[in-house]
């Protein structure tokens, strides 16, 4: 428990939401599938505590970035709540991704080439 907490703490705030939105952009899904998707896509590098998805989903719902609907899953024949990205959600995601890219770029510029130069 302590361990998984540490990992989820290591994700920066908003990262989980971004990943959820990106997954939902590809296709609507319910919670369980979303987790599987994120874990597979990350080659299990990000071991997201599965439950932490739900508070994040609630935040997205509240911000009207996603919407949800109860349906019967065709695969398991179970009643599931399927989440779908909204138009606002898509816009928000794009903005977040470009912000994230810029941030990553910045971080890399600080860490990357400079470190190489100094070592050589």
């Amino acid at each position, binding site marked *: 428990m302590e361990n998984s907490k540490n990992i989820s703490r290591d994700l920066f705030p908003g990262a989980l939401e971004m990943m959820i939105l990106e997954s939902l952009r590809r296709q609507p899904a319910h919670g369980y599938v979303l*987790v599987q998707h994120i874990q597979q896509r990350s080659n299990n590098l990000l071991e997201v505590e599965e439950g932490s998805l739900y508070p994040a989903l609630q935040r997205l719902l509240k911000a009207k970035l996603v919407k949800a609907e109860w349906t019967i899953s065709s695969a398991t024949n179970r009643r599931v709540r399927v989440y779908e990205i909204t138009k606002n959600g898509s816009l928000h995601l794009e903005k977040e991704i470009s912000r994230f890219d810029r941030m990553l770029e910045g971080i890399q510029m600080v860490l990357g080439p400079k470190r190489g130069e100094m070592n050589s």
Partner: protein
Amino acid sequence: MSWLGRIFHRRDMYDELGEEVQAHLEEKTEQIMRLENLPRAEARQAALRAFGNQTLLEERSREVWQWSRLESILADLKFALRRLRRSPGFTITVLLTLAIGIGANTAVFSVVRSVLLKPLPYPDSDQLVSLWLNAPGAAGLANFQKGLPLSASMYFAFSENNRTFQSLGVWIAQKANVTGLARPEEVNTVLVTDGILETLGIPPLAGRALTAADQIPNGPKSIMLSYGYWQRRFGGDHSVIGRTIIVDSQTRTIVGVMPRGFRVVDHDFDILVPFAFERNKQQLAGFGLQGIGRLKPGMTIPEANADIARTIPIWMDSFSNGPGSDSHWYVKWKITPDFHSLKTEVVGSVGSVLWVVMGTIGIVLLIACVNVANLLLVRAEARQLELSIRAALGAGRGRIARELLLESALLGLLGGALGTGVAAAALRFLVVLGPANLPRISEISLDAGSILFTFSISLFSGLFFGAIPAWKYALTRTRVSLGAARTVSAGRERHRSRNILVVAQVAMALVLLVCAMLMIRTFQQLRMVDPGFTDASSLQTLHVAIPDSLVADSRMVVHVQNNIADKLASVPGVTSVGFAQTVPMEGVGHGWNLIYVEGKIYQGDPPIRFYNYISPGYFQALGTSLIAGHDFDWNDVYNLLPKVIVSENLAREEWGSASAAIGKRMREAPSEPWFQVIGVVRDVRYDGVDQGAPAIVYWPALIKNPWMGTFAPRSMAFAVRSKRAGTQTLLNELQQAVWSVNGSLPVASPRTMQEIYSKSLARTSFTLLMLGIAAAMALALGIIGIYGVISYAVSQRTREIGIRMALGAKKGELRLMFVRSAMMLTGIGIVIGLGAAFAVSRLMRTLLFGVSPLDPISFAVVPLILAAAAALASFLPASRAAAVNPVDALKVE
């Protein structure tokens, strides 16, 4: 969904969330069963592990829809309230402790704030300056408590020539007779020059303020009323403006009324009368006026000092002490301005008292908090199992800590709310108690600032005493163990924090008790001081002033006074009567002058001596014994015989002994005839018991000297010795006696000497009372603390006691074991407390009289009292331990 809709649909949403999570877990379980071929139960476990803390995560998800945790706090609050309701004994104890602790602090803070912190009730009051002078060159002037007051000529010189003041003026408080209304009465008067009202900056409530035109000698005779006098005498009638009243036989026109609460510096008055000085008749001397001024914006007191220092030579150039006198004679006095802010003047020495009281009351609150923390610790300990279970079920540590803190903050705030009530009551009591020399007492109130203070200390104390159990039970991991709930005898470590709290309590209580003890000793010392008069409770004093418009001739004035004294003496039950310009301890300034003693050669000036004018029989009425020689008789007085009586300390200083003084001669000026010393009287503490007795020259009630001619003081205090002193019937008869001499003479400020005497002790008795209350509370709380800790230890160790008894321990030994542990804690507390008291008592130095801050008696007695109290407090629960039946104790489990 609107926020309203969200609230109504929240329950559904929470249900959906639960369903969703369950579906997730189910799907995960099935997948694990499928992929890893595990039985259902194990797969379910794995799914739960992967999911994380389900309870916590669901709570977090729900929180998304709530208002930033407010609601979960509200829920906790509801829970805390319910829990408090369920244990009324605990709740009432805690709330009472806090209400008293916080209430006392709020009350004292309100006083400190109103008296010390708030600006004076005048606009831009930080510009106001009180004008006192220093005159290091004037021998004997050091006897004045505040410095040299101003003379009228100084007022003219300063106000005409200064560059630093917007306005300045002088004033003096006096009594005046108002006649022509219902019956003659003596009223409190403030005489003012132009500039006083302008300086204070308060506009009149009705009519107009006194102006420069009202100060023209022989100009319009104007007067202003105070709000109180206006209401009392004229029922607040606005048509009073323009009416005339007769003040000291002078008809004066009422031009305005000052608003409610307006005082001249710290002086309540009935009427404001213009001085109307004639500038060209003023001499250099006459230093008896109080000065105040308003600085120009940006000017400082040092600048004002320098500015006025520059005008002092101008003053000496412009005025003289009469033809032929040396107008630069005062150069020798080295007069320099010693101005200070008006607030310093008003607040005076009461600051040190109030800060000491505030400090001690603060300590009481700390002790109270420690007690409450102790109770909360016990309570949290009892809840340990519950808390452990909740932690095991997934409650976050922060959540549990928040709940504990919320409970204690709630207690703090409830205590604070009750405390406000306590404070309001305490303040009312305090104002009724009215310590005479507490300045600005009319301004004391429970205002928004005090309420804010109460709120802050309530919250602070709540968090303070709540933090200890919260830290112990929620934030440290070791505590959260289910096994601990079943231990038989509490471990040493478990008691440690409570023991530390008790030690702290004992130490703080000791400090307060030492302070209170020092005040008690001070009070004792003061009571032992011989004031120079006897049996104060059978000595009635009253004032009668004879205006010159009623009786012009000085000799006649004394005849009237003599008549009054005779009439007073014939009142049944009166054994002796005398009168004097000032009676002891009334706080009235002394007259003074240089006194030349025959046969002495002075380098420069002879020392300044205080004096008093007295009638024959005054000393007898007062009970002040003559040590040598004899009293004046009326023959001496009326024949203006140059005789004088001196105080014992003056006689010793000038001639070595009382008897040696008899027959020696003295005078006020080289041009004056000699006065022969005919008597020496015991020293009288004119300025209060805690001040040394001044050296005094007693002139007869009628005196002749070159510059005043035949002079008799017109305002005299009569001292009437009677067993009936202080009764209304005696007062009525005395009043009738005065009126039988002249119907328009009012009787003013009738008081017994006991009242005057007690008033002079007011500061000490006030401090004593406050410290006494604080110390008593500290002692009580300390005892409760020790009692609580030992009782709890006994109840926790019942089983251990049983085993000990079964193994042969004697009851006495067991009792001793618990008493010993209490005494151990007390001992440590006493040692720490003594160290603190050594440091703290020094701060009280200015409040003590005849007692060292390290008074050995106080420092010896208080630890004994505390130790005895602690022994008693631990003996009761220890006896309970000894009474345990070992069979029952062992059966408990």
